[in-house]
């Protein structure tokens, strides 16, 4: 491991004292950023690394959130136990969303189908009232970890930080291995990838499942953070926020996902009382990035420090 990479471990350490300097609201925003880091990471694996036009990320997010919420509300399980099932459900949804891709559906067709899938899920949240609470949503009981109640934002911060570090670490290991290289190979030239012995179908499934898993976990964090789930949180405005995160941050870049989440997550908070501005802002951001900085911010920073440079191998 190059010296430059070891610095990464400093970052979570430096963040540990953060709750001491932030007030409750600022801490909430920081927690929200932590929630969106895995959202970006998972989305980026499918869209950035695998190169598939999958618009279904919000579906995974919602499924994870509702899974956690339902397990906590209906079965009385403590939050920390619902995290893994939320991830698993997200992973299953990811696998399901990859089915059209496995059958050769690509490009715009895949985009349309996954978009339809996302909207269909939202329809399910609204209609399946006995389970999801319908349009009014459901209240999520207070989260706890092994009996330690996450009743203040600072406690949630530490719980989330652990999860986020784990997610990033695991995804990094995956991406900087033969699997990660295979993903990018499939994105670049699927035929050639198959010619190298890569079973592309299986790997596409794997990429989608991993993305869904990670985003599902983010969903469980979201449930713990906001305490109330409603279908409106998982609509198309949410989708463009998630797109903006990975596009501004940098497609295919783990560092980019973190950057994008850090920069953009707070934005909706500022636009809470100004309907329409949020959509407009993200739309304009995406347009500007596509035209002028297609590889995102991470590509700019990559020149500055190898930390931001995607390398798909270990020395």
């Amino acid at each position, binding site marked *: 491991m190059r010296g430059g990479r070891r610095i990464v471990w400093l970052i979570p350490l430096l963040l540990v004292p953060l709750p001491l300097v932030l007030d409750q609201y600022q801490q909430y925003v920081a927690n929200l950023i932590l929630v969106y880091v895995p959202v970006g990471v998972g989305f980026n694996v499918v869209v950035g690394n695998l190169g598939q036009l999958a618009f279904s990320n919000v579906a995974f997010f919602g499924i994870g959130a509702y899974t956690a919420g339902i397990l906590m509300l209906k079965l009385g399980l403590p939050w920390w136990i619902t995290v893994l099932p939320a991830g698993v459900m997200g992973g299953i949804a990811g696998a399901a969303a990859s089915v059209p891709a496995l059958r*050769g559906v690509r490009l715009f067709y895949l985009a349309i189908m996954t978009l339809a899938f996302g909207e269909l899920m939202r329809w399910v949240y609204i209609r399946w009232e006995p389970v999801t609470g319908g349009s009014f949503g459901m209240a999520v009981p207070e989260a706890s970890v092994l009996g330690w109640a996450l009743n203040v934002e600072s406690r949630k911060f530490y719980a989330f930080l652990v999860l986020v570090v784990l997610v990033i670490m695991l995804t990094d290991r995956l991406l900087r291995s033969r699997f990660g290289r295979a993903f990018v190979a499939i994105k670049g030239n699927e035929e050639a990838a198959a010619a190298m012995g890569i079973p592309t179908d299986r790997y596409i499934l794997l990429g989608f499942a991993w993305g869904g898993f990670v985003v599902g976990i983010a969903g469980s964090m979201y449930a713990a953070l906001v305490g109330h789930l409603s279908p409106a949180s998982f609509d198309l405005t949410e989708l463009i926020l998630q797109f903006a995160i990975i596009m501004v941050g940098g497609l295919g870049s783990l560092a980019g996902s973190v950057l994008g989440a850090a920069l953009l997550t707070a934005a909706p908070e500022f636009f809470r009382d100004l309907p329409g501005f949020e959509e407009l802002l993200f739309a304009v951001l995406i347009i500007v990035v596509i035209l002028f900085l297609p590889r995102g911010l991470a590509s700019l920073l990559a020149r500055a420090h190898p930390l931001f440079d995607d390398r798909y191998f270990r020395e």
Partner: protein
Amino acid sequence: MLSFLPQLVVSGIATGMLYALMALSMTVGYRATTVVNFGHGDMLMVGAYASYMLVAGVGLPFGPAIVFAAAFLFLLGFAAQRLLMQPIIAGPHLSLAMMALAVGYALRGFARIEWGNDVLKLPRAYPSGAFMLGPVVVTMDDIVISGVVLALLAVLFLVFNVTAIGQVIQAVFQTQRGAALVGINVRAFHATMWGAGAALGAVGGVLMALIVPLTPDIGVATLVRGFAAMTLGGFGSLQGAVIGGLLLGIMEKVLGFYVSTVFIDITAYLVTILVLLIRPKGLFGQHATLRI
């Protein structure tokens, strides 16, 4: 029970006409540029709002309002393609899809900023009423919508097959390189076709505003139904778009009545997913999915 079927089919055809128009307008843009305009539904929404402003705000009669709205959307579609899509036309498909999507979102953002989330209703342009056609009830709305769409289809058919411009369009649809070789300005063509698609969509938006309350989000439902119709009819096929739209309208009504009202909302989603999984070419499609 079956006695309701004729009514359902007739009502379905009326809504189907709207879907057919939406799908057709999307197909025109797609055939010209091979890029799916994910922001199309929102352009339609803008058309609807534009006509609202003209009718309710300025007091323009309905007919001219549609024409103005269509002209405005033509310019918007043209500009969007020329300024935002054309520069990246050779780039990855993801960028193209995202750009179109972002344009749609931007339009929606504008609309929401301007009109908030209020629900607006277009003032009545003609008296409401209904007629009995045998055992079936046909409303004025059904007639107006179907009439306008059929008239448009007739005009389009004539333009495509009879006029010189139509020949040019057909030629470029078939082979862009060939067309460029003959001296046709393909870039202007792309922009013009997007404009034309947007204009057609605007008409659809106005028609939709006749029967559906106006909010900034109507574009999304439109987009999904337009896709469903295009998918069912076969992506890229003009007749397919029309037939797909009509079939979708009928299916929604029939399934909605006989199986569950649930289907009024989700038929479009299910059709999209199922058709792409089972028979990706749809009914008349020429472009199948890619095989690895």
